[in-house]
């Protein structure tokens, strides 16, 4: 089943087409990777899907429903969450409060405060931040800030999670922990759509990969196909 579907999605910034007629889909339960050189429009595509930006043309469907032009908070309540390339945390609030907000506001039905606190503490454990609940988010290391952002997104009980360069700037050990976390998230039944530059990680974790270049989709397929695709090698991977 297709959980997310885009048809002829386009975004113009003035005369520049940041995304030009891109069609894509994500199957329920898979991990889909999105790669491409800097400026290819990867984050723009995420912004269109999550509602940060409205597309110039095209339709985006989430679980069969047309979500084009909806606001981020409406899309979130329908079961989609995301993280940001540059972490956007509530820096002067505690780690627990950050997650708590996700679980208090992100779900369509309102939830008891005590249940929200329980859920949030569990999420702290899952992403590996247990015992850090009372620390201010801005005082965390970058890795932990990224983990917190994932926890906050998970707190909204998403069916689809968009990860924007979750592994950028991490050490090799941290990358392998991140891969484990992503697999753990998928095993909880959450579909993952991720932008990543760390190719090794991308190849090992993705079920399928889409390649963007200057706002156009130039390739799509399983990791092995992408790794051997001559156009992708020429433009992005390098010989």
């Amino acid at each position, binding site marked *: 089943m297709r959980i997310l579907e885009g048809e002829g999605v386009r975004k113009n910034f003035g005369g520049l087409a940041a995304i030009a007629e891109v069609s894509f889909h994500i199957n329920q339960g898979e991990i889909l990777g999105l790669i491409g050189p800097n400026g290819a429009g990867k984050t723009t595509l995420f912004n269109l899907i999550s509602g940060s930006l409205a597309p110039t043309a095209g339709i985006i469907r989430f679980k069969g429903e047309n979500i084009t032009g909806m606001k*981020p908070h409406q899309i979130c*309540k329908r079961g989609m*969450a995301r993280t940001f390339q540059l972490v956007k*945390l509530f820096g002067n609030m505690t780690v627990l409060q950050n997650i708590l907000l996700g679980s208090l506001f992100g*779900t369509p039905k309102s939830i008891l405060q005590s249940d929200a606190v329980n859920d949030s503490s569990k999420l702290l454990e899952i992403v590996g931040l247990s015992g850090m609940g009372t620390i201010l988010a801005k005082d965390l290391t970058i890795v932990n800030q990224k983990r917190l952002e994932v926890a906050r997104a998970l707190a909204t009980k998403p069916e689809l999670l968009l990860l924007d360069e979750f592994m950028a700037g991490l050490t090799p050990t941290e990358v392998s922990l991140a891969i484990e976390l992503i697999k753990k998230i998928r095993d909880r039944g959450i579909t993952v759509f991720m932008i990543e530059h760390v190719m090794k990680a991308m190849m090992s974790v993705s079920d399928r990969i889409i390649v963007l270049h200057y706002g156009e989709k130039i390739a799509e397929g399983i990791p092995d196909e992408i790794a051997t695709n001559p156009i992708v090698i020429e433009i992005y991977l390098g010989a």
Partner: protein
Amino acid sequence: MRRAISKKFFYPVLVIFFSMIMVMMPPYVSPYTIILLNSIFMYIVLTVSWALFSGPTHYLSLASAAFFGIGIYVSAILGDKLPLLVVIGLGGFISFLLALLVGLSSLRLRGMYFTIFTFGLSELIRHSVQWWEVNRTGTVGRWVIGVDHTTVYYIMLAILLITLVVAYILKHSKYGLALLSIGESEEAADHIGINVNAMKIITFAISTFFMGTTGAIMATRWTYIDPSIAFNPLFSFMPVLMAIFGGIGHIFGQILGASVLTLLADVLLTKFPYYYMLLYGMILVIVVLFLPKGLTGLKEEVKKWQEGRSFK
């Protein structure tokens, strides 16, 4: 969160205790004390309601005078036609409606653009009222039906208590947390399901309701008003100063800031009528320089200082 829960009962009990004293006090104190307390109550309401919105969201509004002034004008126009409590309610309600409109029209403004917009709005309303009065009604000022000080006192006390209760409940609810998150990162707040625009507009409108009611009752104290009295920009600046002076993040700090500065102004005005503004300004500058977290930050400073000493 843990700290918020352990203090859950402390402040409400303190407020109930104080309000009981306040309710019983009038027969035993001088009229001068009542008038002074009315001023203090007025500034506390203005400060707490300003900080209700501007504190957590970091949207610095300089429009308090606009909504306070609307309350004053509602009182001047309708004061002799409707019962006092209805007039006060209307003062708040009209402010609330105007704030909804203002909120809707200024959604895209952030940071200092929002601040300048609110200040401009306040001035625009002042000049519009002035133009209307001169060209349409043919007057500059208006008379306000007077009300005795004790009645003003009890009504102000009631408004004050309602403001404090609303501010306290909001601050400790999930919406209080959401307002803080908006101040930290609006985009992130939007993406975790918070309806950022609705939260901002409704909170802003609620905060102006209290300003409007306060204007409507305090108008009776002046007996004569004109646009430059009713929409005096000082009513926009004072709540900001008082909140910063006391400690913007705590309701207690806001109350403290408003009370201390009102008392200080009163003392300076009577003891040093010629240097009043000079001294007042100097004290404000010193506090902002040395106590960036306000009076409530003093506790932390003292603690830090003591810890520093014990290490020597």
